């Protein structure tokens, strides 16, 4: 504490992974998880979800690693199905959100003053209402169901990224190579696709990866509240909200493992996005 030197001193005896290796490891882990999820959803699917009244409410055991629920369904199969569903919704929502953010960010920065004012105002408007309330509103407007959930999560995640991309484009716009390009008679569209887009790619990728865990968490939250997905499709939120009825009977595994699985998935993609952000940023890339 007394030393003036605030540089973190690393323990040289133990080899630590540097950030690139760490990131690669996370990517490998995430890929494995996805593979397991997809494979599991395909193979475990129908069989595990069947009702087996002889094996009701069993705590975790070798045969059922995560236990069974009140209808004798295998919780492992349900969790895997739920995660793959959450993953799908999260992917769709984060992808569309990132696309909206890209289009609006470019439009705000390049489309003239009036368009910029409108888009900035729209961003402010969306940030003025609490996120979850907005998702409820939009999910309701789209009539609930799966499309309601996807629409709700998609249409609420773009504002922050839009702001970021807009600021980035505003900075790039006055860069010399862009000015020269414009002077040479290139169209705005040409400049946007050939000069700006390549510069925005890392921002966009990182933005997308960081949106993804958010989207999954919000998807789980909104299905937990009872919107959208039907009880027959085991989204993680639905599983958790159903488990509430059985908690006082002591069936802790119904809530514990699905939530933990969700947490692990979200955390992994969060680490991935954060590491990529640090790697893409030239100021911190070589740390």
């Amino acid at each position, binding site marked *: *504490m*007394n030393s*003036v030197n*605030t*540089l*973190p*001193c690393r323990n040289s005896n133990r080899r630590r992974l540097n950030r690139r290796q760490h990131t690669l490891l996370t990517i490998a882990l995430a890929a494995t998880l996805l593979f397991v999820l997809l494979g599991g959803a395909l193979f475990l699917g129908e069989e595990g979800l069947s009702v087996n009244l002889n094996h009701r409410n069993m705590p975790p055991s070798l045969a059922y690693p995560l236990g069974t629920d009140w209808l004798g369904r295998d919780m492992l199969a349900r969790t895997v199905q739920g995660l793959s569903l959450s993953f799908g919704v999260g992917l769709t929502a984060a992808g569309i959100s990132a696309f909206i953010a890209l289009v609006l960010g470019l439009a705000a920065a390049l489309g003239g003053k009036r368009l910029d004012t409108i888009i900035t105002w729209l961003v*402010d*408007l969306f*940030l*003025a*209402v*609490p*996120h*979850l*309330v*907005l998702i*409820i*509103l*939009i*999910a*309701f*407007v*789209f*009539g*609930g169901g799966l499309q309601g959930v996807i629409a709700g999560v998609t249409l609420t995640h773009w504002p922050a990224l839009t702001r970021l991309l807009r600021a980035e484009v505003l900075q790039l716009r006055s860069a010399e190579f862009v000015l020269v390009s414009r002077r040479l008679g290139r169209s705005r569209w040409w400049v946007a696709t050939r000069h700006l887009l390549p510069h925005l790619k890392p921002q966009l990728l990182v933005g997308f990866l960081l949106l993804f*865990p958010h989207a999954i*968490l919000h998807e*789980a*939250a909104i299905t*937990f*509240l*009872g*919107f959208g997905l039907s009880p027959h499709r085991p989204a993680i*939120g639905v599983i*958790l909200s159903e*488990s*509430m009825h059985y*908690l*006082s009977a*002591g069936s*802790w595994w119904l*809530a*514990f493992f699905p*939530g933990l699985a*969700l*947490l692990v998935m*979200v*955390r992994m993609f*969060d680490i991935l996005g954060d590491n990529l952000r640090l790697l893409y940023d030239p100021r911190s890339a070589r740390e």
Partner: protein
Amino acid sequence: MLLFLTGRILRLLTLLAAVSVLSFLLLEASPIDPVRAYVGADMLKVGPEQWAKIAEYWGLDRPLPERLARWSMAVLRGDLGVSMIFRRPVLDVIGERFLASLALMLTAWTFSGIFGFALGTLAGMKQGTWTDRLIKWYCLTLASTPLFWLGLLMLLTFAVWLGWFPVGLGVPAGVPAHEVTLADRVHHLLLPALTLGITGVAGVALHTRQKLVEVLQSDYVLFARARGESGLQLFRRHGLRNIALPVTTLQFASFSELFGGSVLAEQVFSYPGLGQAAVQAGLRGDVPLLLGVVIFSAIFVFSGNLAAELLYRLIDPRLRLKGDPCEQR
């Protein structure tokens, strides 16, 4: 200052107008028929004539612009309509529910502020050590934890296994309203507030840590260290004073997440607050109540942001002088 406040109020008014009109139009576009939502399970018992009567009673047979105009006029008079679920004026429902939610949010907010600040300070002062890494890891994990799952775990541990707290609801079941004591309410409030507060810790702690690390890397801290200051003294003289304002501001600006979190916490613990009302309204198609909650939550978030801005202006003299020329005394 007066100029600033007027500007903010104007901003709030335009914002509210935009939020209201947009939400109204969005809800109009919803495929869910409000009459059907109102009738609910009695669908088969209601004939077409009665159906039309209900639509007329709620004013649903008029064209869209007229309904929007009438609704706007009513809102301007302070009448948000009647909730279909509660069969009471929306404003009454919101007022009553909001008080319950406010108690919950305020407790959680205070808890997360104090605890998060302490954790962040500890991590920042011990930057680079195992303590720092542990706190950082803990906060980042907490940030990706679904709030309702944390709530379920708390419920399981403290209410079901240990039996220290009731399983849910804002007041004891089966007790007349006038016999409910303050202790009862606090007892029911504690677990949801704790859940909400613990989730809030992550953001405050990480922000505090980052600000403190920035301060500690500055030249004046280098000189202070050269003079021999260290530890608590260094923190009190140079750290605390410089990070207190940005951290408090952030805490005020986090009202949006606080509100969203309270919706989930209330659902887990079946706590009768505004968030639960919003969920009910959304699920059962209670359009007036949903509109009311949207508008009200926008006001709530705005007041948090306004408080943050005011705080900055009141405390930081640099901002006061720069921002507003009339303010120079």
